[in-house]
């Protein structure tokens, strides 16, 4: 166990970085990770939320529950706090961190099974593509067919947020996670790259936001499809500056620019216009043999997220922050 005292030492250390440990220890128990642990948790400078008129900076070690309940985040970047409050379980949100959530490894059952190798574990094939990929992608952007697991990355993408990485580098979410074309990587950071923080642009005054995930069970389930929508209503009635991002459908979270373009300028009451805009979410899908069911689900989840954002109903079905966790 290596316990660096500052970022410089962390950069120099060699091993698996540990933030909250919720993903790392699950993988170690499965034999998917071994060797030294580089424990980042003493790096207090990586923890905490700073927010002002210029934007927000959230330390990479900030806990998910903190993000979900932080008054400044709830007020200024509600799509992020709603997403944070709806993912995983209370116990995981209490320990899991922002950085860990963004950089977590894929949840594909083949990747997590000690009996298989795949692109992500040093192999040269995707056994899910030929095998069982019911939970797989409908945007087939690369050799690996598992969807990206980070709901927070999806929400941050909707804010054009930037990841701050050691060496004072700033990466967009797309730069951080790639475009899905490299099946061997969970993210684009290299050994020795330490995530420091995420920076968000200034809050959008009057933002309305919604986060929604389609699941079989009521609570605590990985989304089949998820979507986040943020926008505001000009004059209380016209959609302005919409942002829509989706997850569960591609090897990386996707920002849906064409849906946003179609939404901009629509009336809040223009249901058929919003429906048409949401339907654009599926125009470029390339579903796999077993993932066709996600196509109508994507369209419906996007529409529902838009409707909730327009109506100012922040997604009460998923908001789990009421009791402070």
């Amino acid at each position, binding site marked *: 166990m290596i316990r660096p005292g500052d970022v410089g030492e962390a950069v120099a250390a060699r091993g698996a970085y540990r933030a909250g440990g919720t993903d790392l220890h699950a993988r170690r128990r499965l034999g998917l990770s071994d060797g030294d642990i580089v424990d980042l948790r003493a790096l207090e400078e990586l923890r905490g939320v700073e927010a002002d008129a210029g934007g927000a900076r959230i330390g990479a070690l900030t806990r998910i529950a903190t993000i979900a309940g932080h008054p400044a985040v709830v007020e200024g970047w509600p799509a992020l706090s709603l997403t944070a409050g709806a993912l995983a*379980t209370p116990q995981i949100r209490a320990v899991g961190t922002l950085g860990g959530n963004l950089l977590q490894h894929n949840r594909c059952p083949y990747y997590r099974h000690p009996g298989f190798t795949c692109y992500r574990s040093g192999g040269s094939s995707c056994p899910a593509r030929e095998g*069982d990929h019911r939970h797989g992608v409908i945007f087939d952007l690369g050799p690996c067919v598992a969807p990206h697991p980070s709901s927070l990355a999806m929400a941050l993408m909707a804010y054009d947020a930037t990841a701050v990485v050691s060496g004072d580098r700033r990466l967009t979410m797309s730069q951080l996670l790639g475009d899905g074309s490299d099946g061997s990587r969970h993210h684009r950071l290299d050994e020795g790259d330490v995530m420091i923080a995420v920076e968000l642009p200034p809050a959008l005054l009057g933002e309305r936001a919604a986060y929604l995930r389609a699941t079989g069970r009521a609570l605590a389930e990985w989304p089949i499809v998820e979507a986040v929508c943020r926008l505001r209503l000009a004059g209380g009635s016209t959609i302005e500056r919409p942002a829509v991002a989706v997850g569960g459908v591609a090897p990386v979270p996707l920002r849906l620019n064409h849906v946003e373009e179609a939404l901009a300028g629509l009336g809040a009451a223009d249901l058929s216009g919003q429906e048409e805009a949401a339907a654009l979410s599926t125009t470029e899908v390339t579903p796999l043999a077993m993932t066709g069911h996600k196509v109508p689900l994507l369209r419906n989840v996007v529409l529902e997220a838009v409707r909730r954002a327009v109506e100012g109903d922040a997604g009460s079905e998923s908001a789990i922050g009421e009791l402070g*966790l």
Partner: protein
Amino acid sequence: MPINGRQLEVSPRHETAVDVLRNELGLTGTKLVCGTGVCGACTIAVDGVPVASCVLPAGDLEAGDVVTIEGIAADGELHPVQKGFLAHDALQCGYCTPGFVVEAVAFYSRWRAERGMARPERQDIARALAGHLCRCGAYQGIYRAVADACAGAFDAGEVAAVRPDGEAKVTGAARYTTDIHVDAMVGRIIRSEVAHGTLVGVDAEGALTLDGVEAFLMLAKPSERIRFYGQPVAAVVANDETTARLAADRVAVVIEPLPSAVGADECQADDAPDVHGWWIPPSNNEAPTLPNVRRKNLVGPTIPAAPFSWRVDRRLARAGDDGRLIEGRWDTAVVSHTALEPHAAVAEWSPDGHLTVHLSTQGVGPNREELAEQLGVPLENVEVVAVHVGGAFGAKQSLGVEAVAAARLARLASRPVRVVFDRIEEMTVGGNRPGTSIDLAIGADNSHRLTAMKVRSVADSGASAGSLVASFLPRFVYPGAPRSLLDFDAVSNAPPGTAFRAPGGPPALFALEGAVEELAEKIGVAPIALRRSWNRRPLRKAMYDWVEGHPLWSTRVAPGGGRHRRGVGVAFGSWFQGHDPTAEVTVEAGPGGIRVVAGVQDLGNGTRAMLASAVAESFGVAAASIDVVIGGSRHGRGFMSSGSRTTSSLWPTARAAADQAAKSLAEQLPAVGLEGATVTDGGVLHADELLTWDELLPRLSRVVEKATRPPDHRALTRLPHRIGGLRFGRGLPESAHVVEVEVDIRLGSVRVLRVDTALAAGKIHAPEVARSQVYGGVCQGLGMALHEERRIDRLTGAVLTTNLEDYRLAGIGDTPEMQVHFIEWGFEHAAGGGTGLAELGIVAVPAAIAGAVAHATGVRFRRLPILPGEIVEAFG
């Protein structure tokens, strides 16, 4: 590190908190179940915040104020939440209970701080407890326990615990097999990683040269055929878990691969290899498998075809011509038992050759006999112990490889050895209910009478056979008309199926009850009215009457065309009833109190509570005062807790032993000056004064009385006499469910809002635990209907749903409001007047939920589980 208020000096050898707590500090109340932070069984509080200790860095134990389950009632006073769990029977097997309690205690504190004495809503509790899973389905009691505790119901005073073992379970004191000898040597089973092949050899050299590796043994024979991924091949034993895993990885298993076929369709394909051969597969039912006809890998029929099945075809054809035929295929997925306590054994040999095996089992007695035979050890030298069992559901009946391996490794190592399946092993080979593909046809005549029934089931059985889907319930539930009922097993290179709570029942009724509803709709008859004319047995009629009087059913309305659509469904079920005639119970009574002893086990079904109630009733004393001693083969002749036989076998036997004990105590009365006293209800009548046994026992000498199961008054049945020790009794217990669901047709989610159940299982001897059994059956049936599906890789035969996020158990948020209505007549001829109900409680649940979804959506889904994608696709 401050743990439970004590400062402990530990320099952790383990990486995660749960391993430190359990293996270094012996705090075994905290359970390790999923190992991936999903199920919550390992939850502890750090600075008041509940966290999953299986993924928590060990160092965090030093960073804060840690409270484990053992610290909740450290001063001896139970927390209000714990009292709530006891009073509302918010637990069954109890393996998830410590995690739930730690979480609920934290919720209680936050709630009190923020909302005072207000009573939380179900949604508040569900969200707070969303990170916990209970396989038994005790959620209904958990809701009530937490809500009442928050509202102040348990702030002061004692509560009456429903279960004698309840307090041990809510405080973390209950020790399961996995908690025994946590410092023992660790045995690990080496398994096949191919689906099909012939074992060539095993090279253990690389393992045996490792420091800390003690011994190695073969579990498979040379040249043995490997038929599934996960089949045991060998085992190693080492000083600790890490070394054992490393050693297992270093054992080179050489298997000459054969072409494989994984799954029912695959093994029936033209080019599929012959998986089955002349081998007799193990049973996926409770009856043994027999050599059977096979066409390639399709084995069966399990029960030979009835003659004159041409009549069935002719009648069905006529019904088809008249437009009164329903035929089609209904499919159900393979589902995994998923007991939270995995298969586990801890074996220890004494120097004089006596073997004690702690075993997570459904039958300490039968497993003891099997173990002695397999090891070639005299029976009297073997003892099997299962004081607490963390769930079984049918998968812990036949003696498992874990017991044999632990015993043999312990003999080689001359030290205690534990063999505990990890979650991947448990989900791979820990048991499954075979999937089914059921072709069913029923027809009616112009008076709406059932004219014929044809059911052909092909079970997706993996490396097992003997399924009874078509040929069991469809034979009985709508009697009279000629029928052709055929069961086949598609034997393939997948892990073997195992008996799972009401084997064959839920899939059969999903198809049959679904077809009955479809036929009623097609011929324009009310669905209950149609069933009334098809099954007129008195208890069935009572079920129909109950449903028709149920407001949800009688006021059901069309679901409308909106996004959220509510629907109401019903289904009816039956099951057999029987008992083990050799059941044996001992009652001891004297100055030390009253004790009931039996060589059986409590899987969470409430055996202890039921035994206490029988003896307490006889003596007229409080059930809580009865000492219940079970969970070991030394406590008397035992039988398997399966086939809904526990209550019907034990209650009348315990009652008889208690009555005998009271009688022989009464013989001592003249000697203590109570000449002419007579035994009566609740004590002894002497000189017109009622003396209670509580008063009398201190004055009498101890008596020990053993009884065996009194016979039923009318024992004739048409069923085969006995299967696996079970004697079938006369009459069929009945069940009915009224279910309300809400379907979101755009997001595809189904919320089950309410499940009300009527059960006719004779006299209900221990109502609280009986209700809990039904709640659990509903929760498991709900999982089958909507969420659970084992997935397997067709190429390699590896099970893919190996963790508790990919294998989806219903959670607390999925739990409907439930009520149970018992109809207690109809089994007066059975000793004790009651029957079992564990299987009856699940058998018709998926059918009823599917019926409610059909009502809500207008779409009859013929495959379980009904998943969001399928609902959304149906609506385009």
